[in-house]
């Protein structure tokens, strides 16, 4: 695949040579897979799996060290009334909160993910983005969530986007890199497919739908498209890349729909929090309420989960 990224021209030819997406077919397939009925033991399994896949996120201007510590507490022990509840995969915070989060989750398997590269707009010079990333890595982040330069992508400067991801990947060191495309700003499904390939070619460990800061975030259709991309990429190169839908996934029902998509598109290899994540905050509470309902038989309520 090295020759594909040899020049602007070859990369463009490759990306524009990818098969076009049939939007009607894609959305219909995503919708059909969303109608599966998952009940009883399968539901219990799906809920625990979904909890273990959450990147518990707080990305607010008003974040304080106290709030980040509380979030970490929740990631470590999501339901204090049931210690059998799995931990979330990670907490996701801004770079300046990484040190606080790392200290709070120390000694556990909960990872600390940090957004970087002038999240969420990504409108900064490359050296600034690299410094942002280095800062987060130095503070101990295990994972970096970067945003691509949508402006460059939309004006067709694909190689620039590619080089930027590559540069960020280099400064990540051992940290895993998630590349956010902000699918809501890419306008077409064809663009999402192209962006996915740029990300994977540049060495992304994860491809991620969105920042959660725009109107359209993760949808079943765009996640299905990205799952197809990682499936095709592994067939072609043997390299497995993870997928992370983020933003707008708030209910257990939604989360289970995504898990069905994963199982039906890429299979069990991805049904693990090393390869699939949910970027979410309020989703966890709904999962916990559903979990309580399954174990007690009574509908739970927001009074019985922590408010964050």
């Amino acid at each position, binding site marked *: 695949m090295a020759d594909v990224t040899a020049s602007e021209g070859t990369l463009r030819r490759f990306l524009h040579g990818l098969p076009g997406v049939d939007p009607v077919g894609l959305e219909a397939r995503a919708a059909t897979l969303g109608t599966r009925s998952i009940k009883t033991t399968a539901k219990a399994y799906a809920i625990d799996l979904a909890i273990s896949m959450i990147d518990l996120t707080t990305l607010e201007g008003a974040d304080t060290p106290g709030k980040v510590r509380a979030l970490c507490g929740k990631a470590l022990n999501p339901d204090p009334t049931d210690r059998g509840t799995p931990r979330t995969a990670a907490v996701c915070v801004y770079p300046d909160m990484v040190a606080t989060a790392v200290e709070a989750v120390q000694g556990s398997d909960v990872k600390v993910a940090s957004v970087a590269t002038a999240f969420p707009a990504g409108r900064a010079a490359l050296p600034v983005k690299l410094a942002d990333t280095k800062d987060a890595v130095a503070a101990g982040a295990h994972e970096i969530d970067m945003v691509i330069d949508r402006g460059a992508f939309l004006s067709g400067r694909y190689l620039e986007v590619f080089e930027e991801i590559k540069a960020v990947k280099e400064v990540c060191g051992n940290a895993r890199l998630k590349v956010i495309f902000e699918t809501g700003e890419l306008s077409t499904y064809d663009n999402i497919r192209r962006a996915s390939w740029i990300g994977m070619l540049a060495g992304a460990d994860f491809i991620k739908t969105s920042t959660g800061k725009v109107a359209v975030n993760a949808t079943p259709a765009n996640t299905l498209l990205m799952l197809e991309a990682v499936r095709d990429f592994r067939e072609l190169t043997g390299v497995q890349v993870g997928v992370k839908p983020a933003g707008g996934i708030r209910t257990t029902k939604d989360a289970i729909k995504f898990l069905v998509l994963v199982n039906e598109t890429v299979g069990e290899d991805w049904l693990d929090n090393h390869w699939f994540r949910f970027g979410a905050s309020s989703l966890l509470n709904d999962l916990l309420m559903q979990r309580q309902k399954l174990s007690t038989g009574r*509908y739970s*309520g927001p009074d019985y989960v922590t408010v964050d």
Partner: protein
Amino acid sequence: MSTVDRLSVLKTYKLFVGGKFPRSESGRVYEVTDSKGNWLANAPLSSRKDARDAVVAARKAFGAWSGATAYNRGQILYRVAEMLEGRRDQFTAEVADAEGLSKAKAAAQVDAAIDRWVWYAGWTDKVAQIVGGANPVAGPFFNVSSPEPTGVVAVLAPQESSFLGLVSVIAPVIATGNTAVVIASERAPLPALSLGEVLATSDLPGGVVNLLSGRTAELAVPLAAHQDVNAVDLAGADAELARELEIGAADNLKRVFRPRSVDFSAEPGTDRLTAFLETKTVWHPTGSLGAGGSSY
């Protein structure tokens, strides 16, 4: 086309949840008959999930409704009476069918129901003076109690009185700022489902009243056990069901209003109005008693 050829348009009775008119999530319906067994309509046969969705809607509506001024709530309840007045004939016919009453007797029931909305509309901004107020305490405190709504109330509407009874259990619950999930009379749910259309056009925010039709026992059990329901009115439960529901309700210490024989045509009193209230008491220090003995 001559008028003789015209097919009448039958109404599809639907639930009223969150200000919308959905069918039952289960897709089920059941046949509703009049008192002589003649078919009237198919009503939705709600499922546990409909009940859960209704609780979510009621919880969502609670903040704004309980925070609305008492005066505003009164205006809206009065508006319900106004809207009902305009559809008096429709409700008279529905009540007559449902309960096997003569037209005159059914009309009297509807009139009494309309008056009941007005009666409770008047209570909204007066209930605090009756059950709250300043308390004399032995200390340098100004001590004041005020009633606050309990929260989401699951209401089992009376089985026999399909409309007057229904209004008599809904109005007191929402007058004080609670939101309600109501299970209509199992045998005669049509007046209740039509009431949804009235509530939807009375400036009542969506979700404040949610109306479900179906098997009372099937819906009441998950509601009584629901951790996000704060109180239950068991008006429509028989003794055996009431016992089971009280046990379910005990788990999260719900307020329970036990079934009792009520003449719904009589003036209702404040029993139901004050049943779903919590008293908040504030102790405000006024400083130590001065040499003169005054605390102010």
